[in-house]
């Protein structure tokens, strides 16, 4: 029996081809990656921040850039976050896992990393050897050292190979470690000219305060970019095409407009409703 996969996906599903109406946003993220800029990508949950960032990562990795993606919300502690940065570097920096491990191991030797390769030799995971049971300040110091190592690594790369770090749900990190953490990260990041940093967060108020209040360390330290709902015209065209492809008759655009109005143009909700229509 033939099984057609539902073209509408939401939640954990990610499909870089399903990025709709985000051409300008994609260009903005790509520019930050290639040009070593600091970008604060701000938008509520469900607006497609993570999909956009992962699509930009996939797109730029194909073009030779090293784009590391970590999520501060799903990494419960700094050791895991730092481990993911090191593992991502090893996976992307050189041809072949063994080579990558050896070379990344040199740049991050102060972390005493232990590398593990998955059974299929494709995925790399890293645990760090230094003690992180210390206070929050010490934990942030380790993260700051890691970022310094990334900058040194970026300096050693050819100009055609930019390096960028995306920290998704950055607001979770700030909420957990407080303003002192902001100051520590800012102090390191502002010295780096060779690494592009994208700090993304769904806490709109928290991210806005962090970057626009004079008293906060990240005040005016990068560009703020607010993710808006997807423009309706782009969504209408894409949805109509998908429904037609699924052999749904859509002579009028009213039902598609109704989907968008009920979901208030929020990509996650649009995808969920459209997905359920095909189930």
């Amino acid at each position: 029996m033939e099984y057609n996969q539902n073209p509408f996906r939401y939640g954990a599903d990610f499909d870089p081809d399903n990025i709709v109406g985000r051409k300008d946003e994609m260009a903005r993220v790509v520019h930050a990656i290639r040009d070593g800029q600091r970008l604060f990508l701000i938008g509520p949950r469900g607006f497609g921040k993570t999909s956009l960032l992962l699509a930009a990562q996939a797109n730029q990795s194909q073009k030779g850039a090293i784009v590391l993606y970590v999520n501060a919300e799903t990494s419960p502690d700094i050791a895991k976050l730092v481990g993911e940065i090191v593992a991502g570097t090893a996976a992307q920096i050189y041809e072949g896992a063994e080579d990558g491990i050896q070379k990344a191991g040199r740049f991050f030797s102060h972390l005493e990393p232990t590398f593990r390769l998955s059974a299929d030799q494709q995925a790399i995971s890293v645990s760090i050897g230094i003690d992180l049971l210390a206070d929050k300040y010490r934990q942030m110091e380790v993260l700051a050292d890691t970022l310094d190592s990334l900058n040194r690594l970026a300096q050693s790369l050819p100009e055609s190979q930019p390096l960028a770090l995306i920290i998704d749900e950055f607001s979770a990190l700030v909420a957990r470690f407080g303003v002192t953490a902001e100051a520590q990260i800012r102090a390191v990041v502002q010295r780096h000219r060779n690494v592009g940093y994208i700090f993304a967060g769904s806490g709109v108020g928290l991210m806005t305060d962090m970057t626009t209040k004079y008293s906060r360390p990240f005040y005016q330290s990068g560009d703020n970019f607010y993710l808006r709902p997807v423009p309706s015209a782009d969504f209408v065209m894409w949805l109509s095409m998908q429904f037609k492809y699924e052999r749904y008759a859509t002579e009028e655009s009213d039902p598609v407009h109704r989907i968008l109005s009920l979901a208030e143009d929020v990509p996650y909700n649009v995808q969920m409703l459209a997905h359920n229509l095909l189930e």
Partner: protein
Amino acid sequence: MKLTVDLVETVFEQTIQSLEPFFGERWNRLTSLQQKTLSAVLHGKGQRMRPSEIAYSINSPASSVRSALCALYKRNILWDDWNLRELRVRAEDPFFAQWIRTRDKCEDGIDHATSCLGKKDSGAIT
């Protein structure tokens, strides 16, 4: 198969019903004042009401309403949307917002004849 507005609305109702346990839990985690404040904001259709106006509409002290609003922003339930230079308060999850509106309608006993999900009123905040 034909895609119609009726079909979209039926599936929308089913979607919100299927999320009921999740929304119920989310709702129950809010304090009573946060619940009242959120309802007042959502019924305001996105017009930014001042805490004093909300306080008046739900008969509570303005300072308490201000704290409740702060908590709703902090929990990422509400956010300020500056669109076309006009500020709107939006619910981060429009389906959760619709579930609350429906719930309030059902509790008030309004609109039971048509549907508790209020087909004719999408309830979009903006």
